């Protein structure tokens, strides 16, 4: 299988006042194309940090991360931004939509930033809105939507440029169980039907059952990586 992401001997530390805090220690892992991996661990274990490093939102202190064969540290801002537009999609716990844009504008935004014209992407956006189930709310702004609807919108936005990988940081953290379940079903559906690799940080054991693999972290180290048998 193709290796989407390779994490090699990665260390990550943060400066806090006079001391340095090591958040990740000698992390090594590989993500294959089409996998749905959940990253779990207690608070402070470094799971979100690992996700953001893999997604290019932060830089490693030591080691390297390769995404589709490209070494992340060597990319300049333009290359990184292009990668974020085209190769990956992000879904956050707090949705992070733009308040003064409508749903369809929020969804199309990465494509428009990539230089595409509105008429080129509108059909794709409608298709995605259909898939995630928010087509009827397309002209509303985020403030007028429920949490579940906002998160669906965030997912649709993450998929507009047909990325190879979807990163999700606690996507159901702010949702009730019913909405949460629906979101996880959606992610699973996207993974199976579209073959998009999904990496999801979660607190919930139940959530891991939607994926195929679980990587557990503790104190910045990978303690286990196991397949999910349903």
């Amino acid at each position, binding site marked *: 299988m193709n290796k989407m992401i390779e994490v090699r001997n990665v260390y990550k530390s943060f400066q806090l006042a006079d001391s340095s805090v090591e958040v990740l220690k000698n992390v090594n892992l590989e993500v294959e194309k089409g996998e749905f991996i959940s990253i779990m661990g207690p608070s402070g274990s470094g799971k*979100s*940090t690992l996700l*953001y490093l893999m997604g290019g*939102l*932060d830089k490693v202190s030591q080691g390297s991360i390769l995404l589709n064969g490209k070494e992340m540290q060597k990319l300049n*801002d*333009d290359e*990184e*931004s*292009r990668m*974020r*537009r*085209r190769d990956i999609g*992000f879904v*956050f716990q*707090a949705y*992070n939509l*733009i*308040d*003064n*844009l409508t749903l369809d504008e929020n969804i199309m*935004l*990465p494509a*428009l*930033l*990539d230089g595409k014209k509105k008429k080129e992407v509108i059909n794709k956006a409608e298709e995605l809105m259909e898939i995630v189930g928010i087509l009827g709310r397309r002209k509303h702004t985020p*403030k007028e939507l429920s949490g579940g609807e906002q998160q669906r919108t965030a997912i649709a*936005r*993450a998929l507009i*440029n047909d990325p190879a990988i979807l990163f999700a*940081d606690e996507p159901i953290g702010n949702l009730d169980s019913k909405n949460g379940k629906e979101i996880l079903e959606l992610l699973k559906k996207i993974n199976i039907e579209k073959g998009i690799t999904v990496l999801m940080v979660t607190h919930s054991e139940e959530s891991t059952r939607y994926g195929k693999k679980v990587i557990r972290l503790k104190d910045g180290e990978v303690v286990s990586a196991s397949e999910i048998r349903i």
Partner: protein
Amino acid sequence: MSVIVKSLLKSLTEKKARTLLVLFSIAVSAALIFANESFSSTVRQKVYDADVRWGGNSDLYITTKGVVGAEEWVDTDRLLTGYGEAFEYAFQFIKEKALYMPSLEKMHYFTMIGADIEEFNRYNPITLGEGSYQDWDGFNIIVGKAYANEYHFKVNDVIKLELNNAGYDFKIVGISEPKGLFLRELADGGYILAPKETLSQIFGGNSNLVFLKLKDFSQREPMYETLTQDFAEYQVKYGVNDAVIDAETQNYVMPFRISTVTVLFMCVFIIYTAFTLVTLERIPIVGTLRSIGCTRRKINFILILESACLGIVGGLIGCVLGLGVLQYIKYSYITVDEALLNTRAVFGVREVAVAVGAATIITTITAILPILRLTKTPIKNIILNDLNRKQSRRDLWWVAGIILLAACIFIPQFLPNNFIGMVVGGTLATGALLGLIPLVPFLTHQISRGIGKIPFLGQEIILGVRNTCDNKSLMNNIQLFSVAIAIVAFMTSLFNTMGADLFKAFERDMKFDIRLVLRHSDADSLAKLSQVEGVESFAGSFQSHAAILNHETFLNMLCGIDDEDFFKFNPVQELDGAKEALANLDNGKNVVTTNVLKGKLGLELGDTLLIQFGSKQIPYTITGFVETNLGIGHVGYISSNNYREDMGVSDYDFIFVKAQDGAENAKNNILRALNKEVMEIYTKEELTRANADKVVAIFNAISSYGYFALLVGVIGIINNLAVSFIERQRNFAMIRCIGMSKKSLNRMLITESIVMGVLGVGFGTLCALVMSTVIPVTVSLLWGRVTVQLAFREMVVMGAIGILAMLAISFVPILRSDKLSLIETIKYE
């Protein structure tokens, strides 16, 4: 409560930039109020000093009438015998003319006062800058600094002066500072002090000028009446009317007061927006306090008290800043007259109290609305962070804005040229400025919608344009910028109009080539003048400054004219309407005055003006009105016969000459022919030049107020940009996460700044044009009829600078976004 106060104080010190902005806005307001109050007091003192420079500390003075056939000397024996007991002093001086003529071209008549130096010092103290008056006898004299500089006099110099048709050598023993009698030497024509005995011998008399100080000041009026009756062959005069001093003071300070109001508007706006932001930050603490049982009333009290304290602190800082403003006004406004330059600024507890009090009131009132809005918010909404006012799609405040601007466009043409018209005009202009504020968001939305439809624009440009509409701080910046530009552009147009009119006035109102003062304008001198080569024609006029006692104002120029020919040299408008009145000035005590006074005082034909002629008060009937801005419209025309009779004079004050082959030529010929008879001679060009310097100086001072407004506005904008960045940094991080590069983000921020700059300049300029419709009606009362001179050139320059400035200011958020940590902002904010 002390815990709450402590928490609030802590938050103030933590948000230093915000607190400093609020304090600075308050301080600027207080500085301008302080400077205005102090300037007003300083001017009043200056006007008072100027008006009593002749009278000193005396209560009354008696002088000879100076007309043919009048007594040459005052009968001091009779005066002292009859009334000596009532006087604290009765100083007997001699006043004559002394000619200084170093060359034909440099001929100057000084007023020479012969006095006992101790007595003189007691009535009007001398301040010598150089020399001494220890040996006050013989031909020793004291001159003033202004003319000492003019003619390069030094102590111990001997100068030749002609008195009573004979020349004498006088030695300068002292040079006086421009104080007391020498305060306005240049305007008064120059004084020389000499020993009384010396002048007495030269002129053969004891005294023709007696200064009296009464033992009982309350007897001043009765004594004045008595002496006027008993010494009818002389002129009895006393000091200045307080109401006239007030009126003269108003003329100086009114332009500054108008400017202050406009700048205060800006400051109030900034204080309001700053407090809106301050209260936004207070939301969490207010929510917590309310949820644990603190009443609304208590919270309101604490927050209002906090704003009052900020007002007091800002007010005190403003008083210190105000000293700088005051100095600037003094040095810009007061021109070459060193006497005025030396005027000490008058300020004290009153000015400080007014400034601090006004600043506190402005701050407290301005802060009330945001505070009440905050405390009225339901606790649930605060805790759930559901604070955004649901923007009704039918927000119709912009309609009010259109109505206010339309009113300012259409109503002024129907306003009368009087006090009510001026007030309504000012209100309409302020209304237009207020109307601009809600109109800006509406217009910005429409324009951005249009821009969004342009096909070739990049997404970051479209986002930048959209953000200016949707982000409150950015919209606030456009409003702030528009208001600042509108104020500055309007004030520049106002001053251009007034300045242009002043410059034009000389062209329009002076149709003569030379203005001349003769020692004696008798038939002999006038006959000689008519023979001078280059003199085409001339007309004499009497002219003085006179109080209108029944209206507590004054005439800058009371002109006694022979006939209508006077107006060939000093034209006025609407002469035809007053032709008959002017022809019949001599049929009784008739006066023709101006439309400016008509509007100001509500005068009608047939009304009476009680005019002060020296010691007499004579009622004159208004028989006509003319249009002129000369003397800011405070002009009255009476017949020369009435003037001679009532003022007790015989010689023309001015003779206006039209030249045939050039003014300079005619001037030199007149000097050659009339020689020592010429006391003063100026060409029109010389008079215009002297006036132009003064005009420029006045407007330099006043226009600086407009730039204060701009400075305050810029600081407010910078603060808003910083705040909007803080509010939106999460959005910036998120949009970077989905693939916007740094360059694109910077382009978006630059777009926002350019949009703010262009729209701010555009809206502000349009508003200024609308506000300019009130200029004629607001200015006419003080200035006479004017033609509006819009400051187009200045608006273009200001617009370009404004847009560049906004662009430069955009580097504030750009630099901050460069340092933005995406993870920390998204995850940990």
